[in-house]
Structures are given as structure tokens and as C-alpha cells.
């Protein structure tokens, strides 16, 4: 929505990256680590996304679920042809990557505030680099709460890592459908807001998940007194080019590949209220 600060860049062709690690996170979700075959792309910020190309099939937007120097980590869920092809990648395969695209979480802008991270399902993936960034700077932020909702215990992402997050903050996890071994919380992720200790007026919230979950969580937070400008949500539309040229990801005045995916609740709320916008 604003004039670009940087000089115009060509909307480039994909850059080859090689899969160096692959881990099945859940039955239909895999986390892949990519390293540049030759030159790397510009650094990605937490919340930004890449267009990842599976040879001959197509490309889809994938947020970075970890950034480590030139290495990119993505968590991909098998839902369509392209995500299926990316899910089926093996170590050593090459993919094409374009990016970085879109807005990031911009965590440093809220230094000093309580942090509340709310993730639903695979929405934890784009939030993981944010959690890592916050945990790497102890003392810079106030109380730190991570609330995670998933359908079943088997679909929880990064379970081992999340256990380690408890050293730097509170982590609350809930599932919709418990199995017989699950001894944790059962219920929708918004109910976890009651468990978290935070001061609403000085809290910055970061939400990613299915849109109804985002709406319910953000509305609840505003009701509790969190400023809509301090609630950042990651939205999803049909992103194709990443460069604002194809028009698919429009949400009213926003081109989400350019003005999003991370926007404030102040921006998002009136747009999400209009059906089929």
C-alpha cells in the first residue's frame, strides 16, 4: 500500500536449492531444510514466505518455519499436487525457490511488551521462527506465552522443540480430539487464553491458523483489552506470483503477497467481516 523503499527488483526466476534434511513431522506434514545450490536468496525474516517450485508441477507459497543463515526450513502439508510433490521430496533433491516475499512478524518493534503467540494446526510453522527469535533475546520482552491448538495429539508440530520452549516462557497446548494417552488440555485454542498470564494493555499478539480461529482469537483478545494494532495475524489467499503482479491474492485493498501475509487486526478485521471479499 505504500511506495517501496528499496530499488525495484526483477520478479526473478526460481533459484535452485537442495534438500539437505527431511523429517516427517506428522503423517501428512514434513519439514524440509533447503540449502542454496549456488547463490542464496536474500535473507528471510520470520513471517515472510517463499514460492517453492517442485519441478514440472508448480510452486506454492510456504512460510519459513526456521531461518538459519542461507538455510531455509519449510514445513509443508500434503493437500494438493504441488504440496504433495514437495512433501514427497527426499534428501538430495532440488527445488526452485523465489523470495523473500511479503511482510514479516516484525517482532523487534514490540520490545518491552508481553508476547502472546497463538497457533492453530500448521499455523505454528510460520510462528516458529518468531518464537525462536523471542527466546534468543531473554529480557527484551515481557511475559511470553505460546498457545497451540491441534486436531489430534499426533498432529502437533515440533513437540520435542516445544518442550524446550518452556525454559523461556509458558507453553500451553490443547487438542480437539484426545486419544487415550493424552493427558493435556482438550478444547479450542481460545480457551487457553484463560490459562495464559499477560497484561492485555501491554501485550502484542501473533496469530496464525485457519481464518475462523484467527477471528475468534483476535476478537477474544480485543475483548480482553489488547490493542488491535498490536495483534498481528497471518492471512492466506491464493498467492501465485509473490510480486503483486498476478492479482490473485487480493483481499479488498490488500495484495496479500505484498501487503501481507502478516497484517494488523486493525487492517484485517473489516476485510474479514465482508463475505466473499
Amino acid at each position, binding site marked *: 500500500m505504500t511506495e517501496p523503499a528499496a530499488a525495484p527488483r526483477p520478479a526473478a526466476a526460481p533459484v535452485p536449492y537442495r534438500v539437505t534434511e527431511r523429517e516427517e513431522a506428522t503423517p501428512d506434514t514434513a519439514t524440509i531444510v533447503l540449502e542454496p545450490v549456488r547463490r542464496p536468496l536474500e535473507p528471510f525474516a520470520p513471517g515472510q514466505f517463499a514460492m517453492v517450485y517442485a519441478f514440472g508441477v508448480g510452486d506454492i507459497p510456504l512460510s519459513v518455519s526456521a531461518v538459519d543463515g542461507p538455510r531455509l526450513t519449510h514445513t509443508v502439508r500434503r493437500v494438493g499436487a504441488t504440496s504433495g510433490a514437495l512433501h514427497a521430496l527426499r534428501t538430495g533433491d532440488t527445488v526452485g525457490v523465489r523470495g523473500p516475499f511479503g511482510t514479516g512478524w516484525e517482532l523487534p518493534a514490540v520490545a518491552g511488551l508481553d508476547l502472546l503467540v497463538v497457533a492453530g494446526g500448521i499455523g505454528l510453522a510460520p510462528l516458529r521462527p518468531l518464537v525462536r527469535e523471542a527466546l534468543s533475546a531473554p529480557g527484551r520482552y515481557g511475559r511470553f506465552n505460546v498457545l497451540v491448538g491441534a486436531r489430534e495429539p499426533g498432529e502437533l508440530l515440533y513437540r520435542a522443540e516445544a518442550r524446550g520452549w518452556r525454559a523461556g516462557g509458558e507453553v500451553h497446548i490443547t487438542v480437539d480430539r484426545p486419544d487415550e494417552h493424552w493427558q493435556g488440555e482438550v478444547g479450542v485454542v481460545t480457551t487457553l487464553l484463560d490459562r495464559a498470564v499477560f497484561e492485555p494493555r501491554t501485550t502484542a499478539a501473533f496469530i496464525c491458523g485457519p481464518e475462523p480461529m484467527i477471528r475468534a482469537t483476535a476478537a477474544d483478545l480485543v475483548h480482553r483489552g489488547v490493542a488491535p494494532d498490536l495483534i498481528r495475524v497471518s492471512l492466506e489467499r491464493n498467492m501465485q506470483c509473490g510480486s503483486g503482479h498476478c492479482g490473485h491474492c487480493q483481499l479488498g*485493498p490488500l495484495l496479500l503477497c505484498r501487503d501481507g501475509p502478516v497484517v494488523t487486526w486493525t487492517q484485517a478485521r473489516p476485510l474479514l467481516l465482508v463475505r466473499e471479499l
Partner: protein
Amino acid sequence: MPHPLPACGPRTATTGEVLVSAQPVLTGDGRLIGVVSESDLVAVEAAGGNEVPRRAPELTAEQLMSVPTVTVHEDASIAQAARTMGQSRPKRLPVIDGEAWLTGIVSRSDLLKVCLREDGDVAAQLLAALAPAAAIEVKAAQGRVTLDGAAPESCAVLERLIRTGARCRGRRVRELRRPVIPGDRPARRRRVARAIAGGGPVAALRSRPRRCRVDDVRWRCGPRRAAVRAGARAAPCRPDGPRAYWRNGFPRGGQEWAMTDGGGTAVIDRSGMGALIAALAARGRTVVGPTVRDGAIVLAGISRDEELPYGWGVELEAGRYRLRAREDGAAFAHSAGPQSWKTFLHPPRERQWSADRGPDGELVVTEDRPLSPSYAFLGVRPCDLRAIAVQDRVLTGGMYTDPAYRGRRERAFLVAVECTEPGATCFCVSMGTGPAVGPGYDLALTEVIDADGHRFLVRAGSEEGESVLAELPRRDADLATRTVARERVAEAADRMGRSMPLVDLRQLMGETLTAERWDDVAARCLTCGNCTMVCPTCFCTTVEDVTDLTGDHAERWRRWESCFDRDFSHLHDGPVRDSSRSRYRQWATHKLGTWFDQFGSSGCVGCGRCIVWCPVGIDITEEAHALDRERQGNAPLHLERPR
């Protein structure tokens, strides 16, 4: 009362005779679980050949039927039912109630009949609408309406009247549905099946009435095809080096630009026009200009000035385009045709890059950097000149540039022509884009035909423009020619066929997202996407990935895409914008509203193409006026022509 239709149970054996074009399959308690259609039977037939009559009874309805079934609720509007039928193309739609019980069937012909009205109704409605001009006598007989007297307005008013009158708003599917005969009555079923089979008109019917006469709509799928076909002959290209005219911002308002004399001003005649084409070609440029082809004025490569449409004008109305011979021999007295310059600058289909997989599995990506022709566009209208500036902003003005577009655009030489003959669908004045030419041209022409002859006032807007002008046989721009040219353009401003409401359109769009008017336009819109194809600023594209037979070579192609396509907003399970209401709203609000937020200007330049090439004559200016009225709270529809 429409005749009833047969139904059967899941275990009913199918026989050829019970199969009408779609037979519902019910559970024992009457809930609809599927439909056996002709095509289901055809599939069996294809598998079993001539044995069908013997084999079919062995199959039960449950084995044959199509699921899930496309249905319509009995309280749905006629328009919704028609749209459902249009989308999934069944010949008959089962009608269900709130608990999924089958309550009847509607066919295409049932829906269409609603649109046929009694003569008396038509006459009365027309008479009421024309009341102020009581001198008109209205007669209606067998659907034909005869008007006698002096018409107060052009026939466009009447066209709109008929269209408005033909709407079937408010009627519900429940009024039309045919009751269903629950299974097990084969004799009756056979009779009904025969009745339906003999009834006949179904295949010929469309889900919505056509308003245009057949000879008016030869272009029905024209713009898409024309746009693809009209690729100009490629010429050897010549790098021009960076140009100084790259511009992103453009002021609003058109009149103040008129007739400002730049570095070079001169007058050329028809031989000068030929020399201009030759001079541009001699510079290695592919000259593209208007020419008559296929009953329209299209943009194509031209090499001689005789190819220009001398002596041709156009008659435009909503949903109507006609060539008309002119006596004055003017070359540029026609307004926008089915194409715009985006066909050349932002082509309908283009390869972006290709990828090869090496023997070790490594990916090698090669970006397409074709040496694009250096175009000279002859006859760029002021509205289209602005449209090019709008696309410049979209494709090169942001964080990312489209290198292929930029390459073509930087090398293009633009010969603008001021507008002296606006069409009935033009509204550039109210968009601030014409009829006088704005900045951005290399040469600007104004065509003048009077007692002193047929000539063109030429002004140069760039260094290269000046140097081209210097090569042409010309004379100094005399005061008379300048004055006539100025007057012609000023007169054109007063003869605009249409106008947008004089309000902040961005604000209007933002405040009317939930207006009822969108339902009204949705009832007419066919979501064909013609408006997006002909629009000179619509830029949306989608990509296709293709591989060759070896599987080691893949290509990324980009092609125009329309926001009216259902898949445009596809997300996991389905489109975000499913209804035609939301898709028309997306297009209109983007053009007039959110384009400002995204790219700092209006996305509409007032060329009127979307009005002309809409098969049902939807008029964006009319819709904007209606939205404005609804916003003001006085929603009633006036059958007036927006001026």
C-alpha cells in the same frame, strides 16, 4: 401445472425406458441420494456397446447414479437455480426442502419460461416507463413490441427497459418445480418418459435469455480469441537505450493538457501519415495500428497507411458493436475496439522461464529474456495512453518489476491520437483521462477534416518524437488548424455517451460492499470475463507449468486470467469468491476503488470497452450510479440513462 416426473429407489433396476434426462433416486423415506442421468447411462453404453438394453436391468439405480447430486433449495431464487445449472450443467435440477427431501424437479425450460411474459404486461410496463413522453403508443403482440411516435431518447433506453422488465426477481424455485412420482409405477413412468423425450426444447434453451440479436453477437467469444490472434509480426529489434520518459505519477484532469505545444508542432496530410508509418518501420519498429478485420476495428501490424480504417466509424452501445461507414474518410473517428495495447505490452500468453533437470537431478533455471520487438503504436487514444501508464505502475512501479513488460514498454514508441469522435459508451471525461491527450506520448495527432482538407496536427512529446517528425513531409502548424483541432477535442468532451457519478468513487465502493445492487447485477452477469479481457488495465495472470515427454524439461507459462473465473480465488477446498455477486463486486471495486490503495490511481480509464463487450450489456457507469443512489438511501431504479 407442469407434468410430474418419475423417481426410483436405490435398488430399482434401470431400464432404458425409465431413463429421462435425469431421474432422481430416493431412499425409502423419500430423501434424495443421487440422480441417474443420461450421461450415466451413456457411460455404461460406452462400456457395453449394444448390449445395453440387456445389461442395463442388471444394474441398480444406486450403481449408476451420480453423487454428490447438484440440487437447489425450493426457496432459492430463479436466478440462483439458473446459475447452479449454468455451473454444473445438469439438464434438470432436483428441488429439495430444508431436510433434503425431494420436493420436485426443475428443468432448464421451466426456468426459461419465467422470462417469457404476457404481451399485456410488457406493453403496460413500457407505457409506464415512457409515461413522460405520452406521445408514444405501445402495442405488444406475440412478444413483439411496436412503438409509435417520436422517441424521446435513443433506442438504448428501450433496450434497457426491456432488460430491466425481463427480470424474474422475487420468484422462487418452489413455484416452478414439478412434483415427483415416487417409484414403482412403471406404466406411468414410461408415459412420462415419452412425454419428456418428445418435448424437445431443452437442448436449445439457455439458462438466461439472450438479449442481443444473433448478428450483433458474432463477437460473443470474440475478445479472447481476437486478443490471442492479433499478435503482430515480429520485426528485427534495435536497442533504443534508456529512455527519459519513464513515468509513474500522472496528474488527474485532462483538459489542461490540451494543445500544449512542445518542442515540435507541425501539420501533416495523408501522405505524411504514410511517411510516418514508413519512418517508424525504417527505424526497425513493428508498427501496430487500427485496421478493419472481422467486422471490427482491431489492432494489428500495419505497413501502409491504406491499412488504417479510413472512412470507418463505429456504433457502440451496451452489448453492441457495429462498424459504420463514414463519409468524411476519417482514420481515427472510431472509439475503442475489442483489443487494447496490453495485447502487445502484456501479451495473453508468455513463457517466463524454463527449467531443466540434469542427470544428477540438479535444477537449472533459464529465464526468458526474449529480444522483444520494438513497437510503434499508432493511434493510442488518450484513455489508452492513461491505461498504459496504469499498467506501467502495476507491473514496474512497485518493489518488483516485470522484466519482459519493462523491456517492451521502454522500447515502445507511442503515437497518440486525440479523441474527436467519442462513442456512446465512452466516459473518459468523468475519469479525467480524455478526450485531450495526456503526457506520455512520443507524438500526438489530432485529426482535422474540413473545407481545407484532411490533415493531422502533430506534436512531439519526446526527443525521438521530434526526430521522427523532422523526417516527415509537413508544414507549419497554422492557427486555423490549431483552432479547429482544439475545437474538435472540446466538442468531443461535450459528447461523451456516459459518465461516472461525480463522487469519490473509491469511497463509494468502500461504503457499498454489502449493497443490494450487487445482487441485481449478479442476476444479469454471466461471469464470462469478457470485461476483463477487453479492459486495457486488467493485468491479472495465472501460471501453467508444462513438461515435455522426457520429464526433464519444464516450462513456466503465464497467461491472462480473469477474476470472474471461479478458480481465480481458489483456496484449498474452493474459491473465496464463489458467487457471481462477489466476483462482479471484486472486479468493479478493484477498478474503481481498491486500485487506489494498491497502485495509487483509478484502475478505470473510461474507455467503455467493458460496456460494449458485455454480452448482457452490464454498464459499469450505470452500476456506479445505482450504488450511489442506494448509498443515498433512495434505491428505486430509475430507467434513465446516466449522463
